[in-house]
């Protein structure tokens, strides 16, 4: 097993506020790791350090074999970041956004790359429209599509489904699963427990500036006393009802494949 991301003793303070107090984390190549934590736990700070946007005060972080502070240029070649807010150019069309990123990654045939990604993310029809006219889910898909250009081996997704409706959320989940099955390493942050449960091979819980637990879902569940058997009436969740009524889960997922 090779390691795509290795973080040791990482510390970061903003003035008096000690956000990260010695974070240790290892992410295996090709796995999906969910970084779980409440608002303000420091998830975004950690991701920004790993994406070379922020310098740590202490500790080391190695991404794709390169030290983030020593060789940020090499790190940037092996990563891609999808931030909390969709980083798309609203004035440009979806296709132009993709071409822009392909050009900046110095790839041949930016137009071809753009068309292939539009098709893959079910955006071909919308490709010529300004991104400002896209729905939240479409914008997020475009955002992720932009992150995939150049096939970076490591992808950071910072709260990829925050603010999305349930069906857009399922689309993003499917995209992330597809990515990991193709060998991409994914580190995603989330505050939704079910998202971590659904997607992640391993879950790391960030609390008070440290990773307090790190393991598979099964390992984390073992931390609690064994389950007691209770009989409960199976009520559909509101999400089940919503998806059944709008028939969205099946419909849009099918279209995006």
């Amino acid at each position, binding site marked *: 097993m090779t390691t795509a991301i290795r973080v040791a003793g990482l510390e970061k303070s903003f003035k008096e506020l000690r956000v990260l107090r010695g974070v240790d984390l290892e992410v295996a190549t090709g796995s999906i790791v969910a970084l779980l934590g409440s608002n303000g736990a420091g998830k975004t700070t950690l991701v920004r350090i790993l994406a070379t946007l922020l310098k740590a005060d202490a500790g080391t972080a190695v991404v794709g074999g390169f030290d983030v502070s020593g060789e940020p240029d090499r790190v940037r070649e092996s990563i891609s970041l999808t*931030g909390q807010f969709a980083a798309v150019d609203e*004035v440009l069309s979806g296709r132009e956004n993709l071409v822009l990123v392909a050009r900046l990654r*110095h790839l041949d045939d930016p137009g071809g790359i753009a068309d292939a990604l539009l098709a893959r993310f079910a955006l071909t029809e919308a490709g010529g429209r300004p991104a400002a006219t896209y729905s939240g889910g479409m914008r997020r898909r475009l955002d992720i599509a932009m992150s995939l250009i150049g096939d970076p081996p490591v992808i950071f997704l910072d709260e990829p489904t925050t603010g999305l409706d349930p069906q857009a959320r399922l689309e993003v989940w499917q995209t992330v699963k597809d990515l990991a099955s193709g060998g991409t390493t994914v580190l995603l942050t989330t505050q939704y427990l079910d998202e971590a449960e659904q997607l992640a091979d391993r879950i790391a819980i960030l609390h008070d500036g440290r990773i307090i637990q790190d393991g598979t879902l099964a390992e984390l569940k073992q931390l609690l006393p064994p389950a007691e058997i209770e009989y409960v009436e199976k009520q559909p969740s509101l999400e089940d009802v919503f998806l059944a009524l709008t028939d969205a889960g099946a419909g849009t997922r099918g279209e995006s494949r």
Partner: protein
Amino acid sequence: MTAHAFGDTAVLTGRSLRHILRSPDTIMTTAVTPIALMLLFTYVFGGAIDLGSEESYIDYMLPGILLITIASGVAYTAYRLFLDLQGGIFERFQSMPIARSSVLWAHVLTSLAANLVSVALVVGVALVMGFRTGASVAAWLAVLGILTLFTLALTWIAVIAGLSARTVDGASAFSYPLIFLPFISSAFVPTDTMPGPVAWFAQNQPVTAIVDTTRALFAGEPVGGDIWVALAWLVGILVVAYCVAIGRYRRRIN
């Protein structure tokens, strides 16, 4: 990575030029106020202003109007830079393997292109209103050079504003004093008509030297020592603004 600096800057400049082409109103708005001022001064105030010479008022006033055009145009540069920083797109660029400075240079070059178009629009209207010049090709090139330097100097000030602003309004507020500065200079009335301290300020502030030089170039007259004063101001402001902007930028991306 620096091998890509020019290519990356070109790609990003193409992006922001596209923004302007999609909303050409920014160029129109930039040109409308100076044109309105030109109409106002020519057809309302102009008759009452005694220049002490036979020179037509529009010929006298145009250099100052062009500086006002540029001073209001650079506000959009600060605005566009601020919007990039607010949205996620700036962080996306910063996390990509591109030349770090290309993001700023793209905005600067776009500002230059947009302002030259606005200036050309204003000169076009001035020609219709009766502006005439006997300037040689060399003199036109000199005017172009001065206006380019002026645009670059003000654009780097705009970059500082865009990088430091906390609100959209704050991003463009810096341009108001710049727009106002030509009014306290030789741009619209001879400075010797002003009371002592005001005249002293007017005679020693950069706009007067720039306006006098440009006016002489348009009139086909010798520029004298004014051009050196103007160039010294322009290069000085450009260098200081550039250094401050780059310093702010470095701090911002680290």
